[in-house]
């Protein structure tokens, strides 16, 4: 089971006008692993996420997910067969409560129909009850117990991150795409989040594809790392292998001339962290 492939991309390209955001990206993600996608700013990481979740249609190439070819299908169909994601800049439904956010996430797994809701049938009521219980359980799982009735925008930053993950989990995904879940957090919160991500993988049993900036986290969490630069894959392998790869260092440091020394040192420090 360890080597079942859950997601496979084959020569995926994505162009915006003349700009090649992704070119010939090949990715293979193994079930139940934590796979990280790293690269400097503008490397195409988020584009890769958007393409994988079909938020953006790829210009060419194939994407296979759990045995189905998903390039060109509608994003909700991708979600239907078990993919879920979070966003770099948290995109909660900010004006409703935490629990309602999770209930929206459970959309796929509720059976109530609109006419059932209109007539308020027993089946609908049972379904709603079940959904509420499940949502409370999820809240507890992400350490937000008792905060279900708080309007999402009023939650502290870290809670919002976890709520977004809970919402993604509510869709019962097999593959969870996390886009920089630790952005803007302090070291203490970061280590909490790392524990949390591991917990998600282990307890819920989902595969995780992670975009991350901070090497420390990538090194500690990942089973496998893919490095992107200018939309191209420049390295792949175990965290340790990638860290020493000269192409990666070059990518992070740029072509040299344009980057001031101070920045280069900083980048080197990041890499070696």
């Amino acid at each position, binding site marked *: *089971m360890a080597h079942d492939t859950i997601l496979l991309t084959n020569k995926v390209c994505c162009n915006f006008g003349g700009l090649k955001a992704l070119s010939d990206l090949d990715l293979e993600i193994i079930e*139940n692993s934590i796979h990280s996608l790293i690269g400097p700013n503008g490397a195409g990481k988020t584009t890769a996420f958007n393409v994988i979740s079909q938020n953006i249609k790829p210009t060419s190439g194939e994407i296979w997910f*759990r*045995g*189905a*070819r*998903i390039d*060109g*299908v*509608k994003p909700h*169909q*991708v979600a*239907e*067969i*078990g993919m879920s994601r979070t966003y770099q800049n948290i995109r909660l439904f900010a004006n409703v409560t935490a629990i309602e956010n999770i209930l929206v996430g459970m959309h796929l797994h509720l059976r109530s129909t609109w006419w059932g809701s209109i007539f308020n049938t027993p089946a609908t009521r049972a379904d709603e009850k079940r959904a509420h219980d499940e949502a409370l359980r999820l809240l507890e799982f992400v350490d937000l117990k008792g905060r279900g009735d708080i309007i999402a925008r009023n939650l502290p930053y870290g809670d919002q991150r976890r709520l977004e993950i809970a919402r993604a989990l509510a869709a019962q995904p*097999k593959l969870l795409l996390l886009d920089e879940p630790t952005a803007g957090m302090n070291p203490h919160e970061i280590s909490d989040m790392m524990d949390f991500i591991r917990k998600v993988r282990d307890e819920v*049993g989902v595969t995780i594809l992670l975009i991350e900036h901070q090497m420390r986290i990538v090194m500690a969490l990942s089973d496998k790392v893919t490095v992107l630069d200018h939309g191209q894959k420049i390295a792949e392998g175990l965290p340790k292998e990638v860290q020493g790869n000269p192409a990666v260092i070059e990518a992070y440091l740029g072509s040299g001339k344009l980057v001031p020394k101070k920045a280069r040192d900083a980048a080197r420090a990041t890499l070696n962290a």
Partner: protein
Amino acid sequence: MAVQIPEDRLKIARLSRISIVDVLLWALRIGVLGVVIAGTIGTLINGRYGWTQWVDFVVFGLTLGSIYAQIALGYTMVYGVLRLINFAHGDFMMSGAFSAFFVANAFYRSGFLESHPVPALLCILITSMIVSTAVALLAERFAYRPFRRVVGLAPLICAIGVSFFLQQTFRGMFGSSIRAYPDPSWQRATISFLGIEVQAVELLVIGLAVLFMIGLYLIVQYTKMGKAMRAVAEDGDAAALMGIDVDKVVVFTFMLGGAMAGIAGVFYCFVYKQVYFYMGFTPGIKAFGAAVLGGIGSIPGAVLGGFFLGLVESVGPALFLDGLGIPGPYQLRDVIAFTLLIMVLIFRPNGILGERLGKKRA
């Protein structure tokens, strides 16, 4: 844990690449295209119109289109800066045209309009521009400014309120009768060109409209205020952080839009010779459509949309419907115009030139 989702779900995912909606959409496209082609062929076989008539249709369309384009510019600029659909824009036009009517009429009575067309025209234009601009600025100050930061539809409803207010104010003050704009002989002169007679006033309107629109484009592109305007349109908050006085930019935008509406109003009256309090509504709605067609927020888009709409309205009934033998095809010009507008939006949901802005808001 093994794959839990049953295999048939996966099949669904594979099969439903083309939904019934897509099929219906294609059917619609093909249907409209079919009607257009059948109608066109029918008309051409019919051979009722010679090429002089076609040229006439095009000239009428360009005239109407140039007026739409000018009004649409105001819509699009205000939208770009404030994200506000200024429903009252057509009524800004009406205000200018109505006020300029009194000047034009006085000139006409005294013979000045007949003897000195250029200074008279200039005076009329300036009056109209001043009034339209003043009305636009007052509306901005008292009706729209409090909404600078309000999202949602409240500003739109407020704009509808302003529209009613302006219409009724002018009706109350100047009466509900329709008045004829003066018709000096130099406007009625025709110019022969390759055997086709074109009215001087139509050429004048098209030419001047294009000139004014180029001027506007230069202002927006190269002046300091114009640049600031574009910056605010791009990202209001960032522009404010860069030290751009957003209020000033908005006022400037309303000034430009109002002036453009004033010019459009005078041109409208030169060609169609009528002023009354309700005259701004229909062109306003059409220009709104034109702005959206071109991609709302885009200045070249508004011009393109305006001309497109004008041409379609003018050429459409004859070209597409005449050949099909539909009774009263000219009654259906709005149907043609709006159908094509929707078709354009199906293919390009953000208008012809509206890509950039549409994406940002999506």
